[in-house]
């Protein structure tokens, strides 16, 4: 078996270090990312202010008044090389997400069908057949980048991004799929919408998903069903 290359430690700013496990979108590389991210979540390291998770990287912010770059680098290297041996990812949950794949919500369904030569039902089948992993989150609060989309659904980004994409919109591009948690601009091909709330700023755990979680989409077919789930969601968050 090919040995994976050693992680790299790159200066990213005067108060952050980028730990790089590779340069590709790859589930094996990403599992190392997730293992470091869950280590950092479960251990309070006083000098660390925050971190972000990329596909193949973890960017760690530290308090540069408390510790020098040099010593912090040593500390992080020690964690990555000695503490992550088990590659353990904690609290990985499977989340099932209902999607209404209608032409009203799936603004690019026709365009995706044209580009891929697939029928509407085939697009839905392919999108709901796989289990995806949240590789990383970013772009907007709670936006999950889900890797492992079927290559038959590989379509490029929109030539002209939309200024406004509705909250809950489900998009695809390249071999990724994702969900827009809040209304925002966006350039992915929109194929449906979920009634679930992916982000709630007032909650203690503000996002439905976190890096490492697994996602499975399932189809709902009527607007009534959509509204019913949406209504329940609203109630849940009013608690």
């Amino acid at each position: 078996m090919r040995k994976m290359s050693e992680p790299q430690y790159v200066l990213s700013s005067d108060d952050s270090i980028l730990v790089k496990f590779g340069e590709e979108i790859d589930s094996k590389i990403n599992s190392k990312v997730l293992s470091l991210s869950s280590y950092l979540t479960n251990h309070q390291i006083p000098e660390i202010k925050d971190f972000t998770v990329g596909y193949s990287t973890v960017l760690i912010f530290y308090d540069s008044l408390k510790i020098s770059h040099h010593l912090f680098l040593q500390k992080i290297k020690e964690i990555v090389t000695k503490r992550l041996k088990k590659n353990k990812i904690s609290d990985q949950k499977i989340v099932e997400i209902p999607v209404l794949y209608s032409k009203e919500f799936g603004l690019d369904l026709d365009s995706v069908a044209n580009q891929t030569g697939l029928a509407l039902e085939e697009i839905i089948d392919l999108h709901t057949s796989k289990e995806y992993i949240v590789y990383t989150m970013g772009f907007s609060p709670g936006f999950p980048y889900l890797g492992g989309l079927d290559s038959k659904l590989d379509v490029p980004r929109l030539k002209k991004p939309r200024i406004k994409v509705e909250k809950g919109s489900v998009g695809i591009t390249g071999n990724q799929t994702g969900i827009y948690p809040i209304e925002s601009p966006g350039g992915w091909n929109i194929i449906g919408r979920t009634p679930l709330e992916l982000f709630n700023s007032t909650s203690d755990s503000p996002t439905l998903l976190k890096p490492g979680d697994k996602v499975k989409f399932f189809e709902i077919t009527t607007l009534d069903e959509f509204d019913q789930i949406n209504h329940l969601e609203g109630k849940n968050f009013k608690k």
Partner: protein
Amino acid sequence: MSTPVIKVDYPGLMTTVQDLGRYGFQSLGVPASGALDLFQSRLANILVGNFETDAVLEITILGPKLVFLESVVIALTGADLTANLDGEYIPRWEPIKVEKGSELSFGECRNGARAYLSVSGNGFDVPLVMGSRSTYLQGNFGGYDGRSLQKEDVLNSVSDTHKPETKMMPSGFVQPDYSEIKKIRIVPGAQNQKFTPSEFQNLTSSTYKISNDSDRIGYKLEGPYIQPIDSVDIISEGNPAGAIQVSGDGVITILLSDRGTTGGYSKIASVINSDLNLLAQLMPGDSISFVLVSVDEARNALMIQEKLIHAVLNGTDFNENQNKNRITIDGVSLEVVDESGEIFSYSSFNDEVKAKSQVSAEVNVGEQVFNLDAEIDNN
């Protein structure tokens, strides 16, 4: 007890509630936000006896008109936006007693771009959202209803506003002249290898103008395009504050507090944290150039700012040059203290030693004794 302290009579260009930022949620895609000039935000709070982390108003270029509903102590730091209290010009960087019913208004933007207003009583009482009171405009959360202030908004203080333990700026403090900011210090960015050394030099030898397309997310710069060796595209990774991002068209943007947590463009360099506070005081049309420094120099610059904070908190004198004495061992800067634990500085030398440019030094680290030749920096 939460008390109404300010009513907004006129909102100004853009006034938001900010603290030192929202941390612990960037891995979920939640931006840090927080004051762009963290240094001045902290000073404003300290002067009125608040915690550094309390919420202040970040006032951008054209200030609001505010009516006080309670007697408070305020402090203004940062930009000179011609602040008038009941028609009289008021100084910055000192605690000022304000009577109930008074009006604070602003005029011309004379120096800098962002002023910070603190009030006694632990600052402005807006709900803590993910541990912070900072406004994140794009997400419509944090601060005052997730937006900038509007006419008729009423802001409360967290606690009682009377008799705060105010502080004064130390002797040795010189008010900054933000019009003198021309050079911004940088360290190499995570993708600096994607650019040739000559292209990196293009960045540091050129002058860039801050464009109109600049806000709390980032400053887009006008100036020479920067071209990568192959492509600027990377798979999404984290963005630090200060990152100088190069997009596909060669345009560079400095990412600031409200930046997206991750991004897919290469970062050629990163503005150091101490200078992000200076950058916050520049506005569209201002010109800057970049100076490459080491990560240790960046830390030193931050420590000098920290010395001023310490001096204000402790009521001691401030001397910027005290920090010039340092010993670096294998790239690590060490603070030099004498046997009593006092920080040892140039002024501790007698005149005979001061006249020399090089001295022999003995350094005790634990049990070990090092004999060194030390250069004296007479600056």
